[in-house]
């Protein structure tokens, strides 16, 4: 299939992009890697009036060391994340989660920021951004603002980025003493996550001092499993981890769909959490 007609703009600065968006009106859309948007256009599930391509904005392709965090530009692709030395050194969780995203070709074009902006509940990286404590820098007609990951994912396919705004970069605190694991469960290699669990722990004296658990596809947005996180603090045995993991579905609202029932998703989340955390201690 072929997308419906649209106009096309290729700005070379973020300000220019914001200007074009303002001019083009509500039906304009940003295109980053296009790996989610172009298939939607081909199926004619989206019909933007104008596409504003961020591909020509060189500054968005950078990964920058910002002291205790890395700043990942909006056009940094999944493939660039995987090979970037800074990301490999400071954000190994992001690397291992990104390896599970799509396939080589898609990772060559699709972007980390685009995955977040797209806010697909089955996307792997939103839950990871959540547990990493990322924050998003957004540019709009009113200037720039920063939104923490905890407030960024608003609803199904809806992020805090408004139609006239551009997600400029993602600031991700370095993992430091935290170790992490991403467990993705899918039926076939190409499949999206039925459920995914991003877990991070900080260990002290052989037990878990602090834990963060983020869930993919357990609601219309990615979630933190707070009950489990609290129960994991101080956990020092497999049994304790298992008991904490068993609470992971509390407060979730997974869908019942072709891929799996809500019950099964709740069950899987528990198993994956147990496996993720057990692998970290």
């Amino acid at each position, binding site marked *: *299939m*072929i997308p*419906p*007609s649209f106009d096309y703009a290729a700005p070379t600065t973020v300000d220019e992009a914001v200007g074009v968006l303002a001019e083009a009106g509500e039906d304009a859309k940003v295109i980053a890697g296009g790996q989610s948007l172009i298939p939607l256009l081909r*199926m*004619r599930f989206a019909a933007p009036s104008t596409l504003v391509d961020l591909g020509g904005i060189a500054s968005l392709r950078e990964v920058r060391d910002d002291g205790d965090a890395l700043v990942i530009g909006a056009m940094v692709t999944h493939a660039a994340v995987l090979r970037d030395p800074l990301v490999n050194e400071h954000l190994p969780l992001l690397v291992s989660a990104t390896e599970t995203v799509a396939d080589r070709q898609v990772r060559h074009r699709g972007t980390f920021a685009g995955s977040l902006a797209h806010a697909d509940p089955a996307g792997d990286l939103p839950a990871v951004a959540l547990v990493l404590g990322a924050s998003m820098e957004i540019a709009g007609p009113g200037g720039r603002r920063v939104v923490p990951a905890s407030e960024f994912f608003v609803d199904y396919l809806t992020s805090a980025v408004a139609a006239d705004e551009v997600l400029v970069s993602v600031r991700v605190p370095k993992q430091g003493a935290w170790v992490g694991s991403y467990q993705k*469960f899918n*039926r*076939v*290699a*190409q*499949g*999206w996550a*039925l459920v995914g669990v991003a877990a991070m722990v900080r260990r002290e004296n052989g037990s878990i001092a602090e834990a963060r658990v983020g869930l993919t596809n357990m609601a219309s947005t990615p979630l933190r499993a707070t009950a489990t996180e609290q129960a994991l603090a101080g956990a020092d045995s497999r049994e304790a981890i298992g008991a904490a993991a068993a609470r992971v579905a509390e407060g979730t609202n997974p869908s019942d769909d*072709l891929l*799996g*029932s809500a019950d*099964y998703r709740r*069950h*899987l989340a528990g*198993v994956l959490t147990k496996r993720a955390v057990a692998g970290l201690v």
Partner: protein
Amino acid sequence: MTTTEIGSPRRRKEDARLITGRTTWTENVTLPGMLHLAILRSPLAHARITSIDVSPALETKGVVAAFSGRDVADVQGSLPCAWPVTEDMVHPDRPPIAVDEVRFMGEAVAVVAARSRAAALDAIAAIEVDYEPLPAVLDMEQAIAEGADLVHAGKGTNKGYTWVFDSAEAGTGGDAGAAIDDAEVVIRRRYVQQRLIPAFMEPRSVVVDPTGDVYTMWSATQIPHILRFLLAVVTGTPEHKVRVIAPDVGGGFGGKLQVTPEELIAFVAAKRLGKPVKYTESRSESLVSAHHGRDVIQDIELAARRDGTVTGLRVKLLANMGAYMGLVGPGVPILGAFMYNAIYKFPAYRFECSGVFTNTTITDAYRGAGRPEATYAIERIMDELAVELGLDPLEVRSRNWINADEFPFTTVCGLAYDSGDYAKATDRAKELFGYDELRQEQQARRDSGDSVQLGIGISTYTEMCGLAPSRVLGALRYGAGGWETASVRMLPTGRVEVVTGTSPHGQGHETAWSQIVADQLGVAFDDVEVLHGDTRTSYKGLDTYGSRSLAVGGIALYNACQKVIENAKPIAAHMLECDPADLEFTGGQFRVRGNPDGGKSLADCALAVFAAHDLPDGIEPTLDADAVYDPVNFSFPHGTHLCATEVDTETGSVTIRKYVAVDDIGRVINPLIVDGQVHGGIAQGIAQALFEEAVYDADGNLMTGTFVDYTLPTAADLPAFVTDRTESPAPDHPLGTKGVGEAGTIASTPAVVNAIVDALRPMGVNDIAMPCTPERVWRAVQGGAA
């Protein structure tokens, strides 16, 4: 006969163009002034079309024409069904473009022709259609219940036909009902063959050129010859004015064994507009509108003695036809009817199948067509019998199977199995598999309560290949014969052109046919060109499906080669100044018997007839020969497949740890091609067991309409397969070959499911519906454990 080519793993001729992108897919055909078609399809499963207005489409930029079903009602004809399995089969009209009523989601409703594909797609969105929804009939059992809503109101029933075979009535065996009543053990099971989508990788595409003296159609089809014949019949076009070309075709698996609405629509549009037209489906159109496969409910009753000897089998099927009868759709379950007794000496058998209409895409042939369903059911239930009797599943099988010294063996269906050695294939498979070691590991995992359990699945199968003796097809009310043709043309330079009536789309006929010719005629492999798929060069043939091409077309080719040699003999004798009776033909040379030197090659003879200056009196100056071969029997390949699965009882996910296939397909022309066929077949069978299912929601919307939801396995989802062969040559075939196209698909599905069930047996699991998704497996574990 010297054989150097046959049996050798020749790299394929067809690869050269395929690996360099120099292919002629139908979608690559572009003609001057060509218009592009787009089809508006029904979003509803069942509705009356109360009004339709195509005029807004005509106002869209680039649009040349737009029409609805009503606009072409008098010329579009009705899609054919070539297999009315019973005299009273219900065969509703099926206009290519729906006229008053749509009966499945995806049915064509209107067509636009435009100067570009994009313009055509833009325009179909502008067409205005009003539908009055009608109740969608989806469940087969509800469909045949009293008072059910009807798919075709005018027909008064959703039951298309009921077809029965009973060995007592046919005189080929005993009374299955009596056997069941008297049995020491009866196992009753219901198995469901989920709906599958053939999902060939090349979307269907059709180009029609109405300019010139004939109508030329390029189509991504498996059946150019059948298509030409039926196009002529359905549209009333004189047959000699229709030419069909199947250029490079990207896979079929039965899915392109169809005369499609799209082909007729393109034909009608081109005729009307006087311009070449092209239509290529998108993948989502393909998944919703190209025919589906399987979708059968199987109720099986197996009667046995306590020692494991089976005394009778009764099979009752409901086969989902979809909304209409497809080209051979009604016959698909009938092809399976003769295979439920599989490799076994069952004494009594009854089979009954009803074809049921529902508001879904039509079903028709998909790799194996009827035979995988049969093999699945019998191989699953043989395992259940083993469990019931506390026997090893291989033991139960060997107590019932036909022994090597009992061939030819006439089965309870009346088929004469030609040859085979089931024990030999099974022994070889066990050896490659490490059967005993894996059984030990299984026990160890059971004992330790490992969360990952190991299961071993067995599938011993046979199939009937080489469709088919024409008389048998006639007796089954199939509309055509089962012969195949070949022509061998000797060019003056000694090169050879072969014209075959088969129509390959991945099977490598150009290579295998060249190997046969090279050996028979003693010419070089590279000096043979195989022509196919264009009804101008290959005017006669019955195309490629049902593992028939080599088993039937290969013999035609062999026979044509023998005729060429016979034609050349008097000419060679004339040149050698001897009596033809004194000549022998070896290694491509005619020589006087007993005299190793000074022979004449076929090329010499070819040049001699080209010049024709000095030929024996009364000889026609040609070596060329045609042959048509109508098989006397089917051929019956067989084999044993073993599968080990690891089942994660916590998540339900299944990993194939080891897969061994030992197939006996008679003699092998090209082992490389054979291995490829087996690998691909196994992959498709595993995909049925684990991954694929076409799902409709309660309103009849296809939920698996893209490759996101209709999950085909990738390389990362499949294991490496261990394959080997035993060899029982086909006695009815001069080359001894049997057919391999469907073997892997037929054997692998039950092997995988048997393995999963075997892993979970101690938890009380005795069945899991296909595809065995992690959730289903997990639920079975939960249910079993509870």
